């Protein structure tokens, strides 16, 4: 499966969409299933124990009659909730469900536009085949693995893809303004020269990506990443690396260092202000 897809618009702009991975889609589904279960249990409790139930039971004459119709209603509503949950929510909220929102993913049409009730209906009614043999999702899972854009069977008929829409961005990019100037002027970022050697443009980009997404990693992993990026740079920086032993200490030392390098590189590329970057939108539609 590819990481992202590019869609060409009629203006020949190519829009990039990051594809959602199997993991986040599975987690979103798991969250939705928990919600469905909670809704059904709440409904059953309400139906048989709620104040309305007592009233209805009395007016029905016999508890058996009420029980019989109650169970029938329960079967039908459970079925409707199971099959209608995804269809209605994805149709109404343009491709998201609470589970998908929690994982920051969304269903969109292949042409980049939001989905409607038609696409939601097709991709979710075909779910019966994707989930075959129940409850394994074997067929759909295999197809998702083999398809370059991670489609399950339902996505193929509906013409939809599932994209990663947002990741938690607690730290705003401080380079937006500098880059706005560079995009305007046609300058690109230059390698940063340090006493012991150069930091390449690719390395700078990597550092920036790391700093923007660092809060999404578990602490241990975050320390390892920061350390593996900072260690060779400390050597060529001509500065002494302060000794740190604790995890927060190492993290603090290396991330501050990386941020300084990045600021330095951006200063050299363009001296325009580095503030003022508004918080970018975290959803597409």
């Amino acid at each position: 499966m590819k990481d992202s897809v590019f869609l060409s618009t009629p203006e020949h702009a190519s829009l990039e969409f990051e594809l959602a991975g199997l993991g986040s889609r599975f987690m979103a589904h798991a969250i939705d299933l928990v919600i469905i279960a909670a809704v059904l249990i709440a409904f059953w409790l309400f139906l048989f124990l709620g104040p309305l139930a007592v009233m209805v039971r009395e007016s029905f004459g016999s508890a058996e009659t009420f029980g019989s119709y109650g169970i029938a209603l329960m079967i039908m509503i459970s079925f409707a909730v199971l099959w209608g949950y995804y269809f209605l929510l994805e149709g109404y909220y343009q491709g998201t469900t609470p589970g998908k929102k929690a994982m920051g993913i969304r269903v969109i049409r292949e042409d980049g536009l939001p989905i409607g009730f038609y696409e939601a209906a097709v991709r979710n009614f075909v779910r019966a085949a994707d989930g075959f043999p129940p409850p394994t999702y074997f067929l759909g899972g295999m197809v998702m693995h083999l398809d370059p854009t991670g489609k399950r069977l339902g996505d193929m008929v509906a013409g939809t893809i599932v994209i990663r829409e947002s990741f938690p961005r607690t730290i705003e990019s401080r380079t937006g303004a500098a880059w706005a100037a560079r995009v305007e002027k046609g300058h690109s970022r230059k390698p940063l020269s340090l006493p012991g050697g150069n930091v390449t443009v690719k390395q700078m980009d990597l550092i920036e990506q790391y700093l923007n997404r660092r809060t999404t990693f578990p602490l241990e992993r975050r320390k390892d990443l920061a350390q593996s990026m900072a260690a060779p740079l400390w050597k060529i920086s001509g500065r002494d690396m302060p000794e740190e032993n604790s995890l927060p200490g190492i993290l603090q030392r290396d991330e501050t260092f990386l941020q300084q390098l990045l600021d330095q590189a951006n200063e050299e590329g363009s001296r325009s202000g580095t503030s003022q970057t508004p918080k970018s939108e975290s959803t597409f539609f």
Partner: protein
Amino acid sequence: MQSNESIETFEGADKQAHWRRFEEATTRMRKRRNKTLRDLSETELMAFFDQYQSITADLARARSLGAPDSVIDRINRMAVAGHVILYGYSKNKNASSKATWWHAFARAVRQHLWALGLSSILFFGTAVVTYFSVLNNPQLGFDLVPDEFLHFNPAKEDNMHDIPSLSRPIAASSIMSNNIQVSLLAFGMGLTAGIGTAGILIFNGMHLGAIAGWFAVQGNSRSLWGWIMPHGGLELLAISLAGAAGFLLARAIYCPGQVRRRTALKQIGRSALVMEVGVMVMLVFAGLIEGFVSPSAIGYPARMAVLAITLTIWIGYFVMAGRNEFKIVNSE
């Protein structure tokens, strides 16, 4: 040097302001969904389009200059928002579509009669073959007939399953949801190039034929058909149609025509979905009859009448609904 720098700063700030304005505009506009573009005046619309075009140009420039991901991501989001506003909500619904939505099912069935034919042959064909096999060789019944029917002794001639009236709502709703589940599976399994759909049809046909054959051997045919008749016409037709919806999808895989298989699938998807939704509606009716009418004590002629009436209504619907309109569309 000094002057050069100040120009760069100025232009950078200007671009920033431009981007921010566009972001604000799209955030404001997408809240209004369908009305977004219609609310704009001509000059506003042109201005918005110009802004959008300069954003897409910025995106291309940022990419080719190797701007950091955060910047590309931001411009990409702006471009997506603009794209969605310009192209996303422009579906113009023509007035006639509202009046004819309920014709769609009948029209889809008429257009793809071959699919109904194929699935009927598989379903009823298997049933007939199994029926005569069991009739000629009753030993087969022990292999094919499900346990609950094997030693079943009907209580009354007209009323095979004497479901107590209290349990009827439960029977109706569980039959309904079970049948709809099967129909959804038959529909979706069309994507296994029809193999799964064919399997479901053959399996269910075998079931039906084996039970009918077994009851015939036992001399209980009349009570079986008496039970099946009121709801059977609708239910069996609906299962065949669900298979037909699956075969529509399968056809896009076998013979996509002049387009790629993926495109063919998307194109046929609409008809297949309409058919499947129609099948679900039919199965709701069938389930109600099966839960309330079939187990009741009404006599043989009444049962036949229910069968005749339901079939006439539905076949009439399939033959008649939306026919004139189709001619008008064709002649235009």
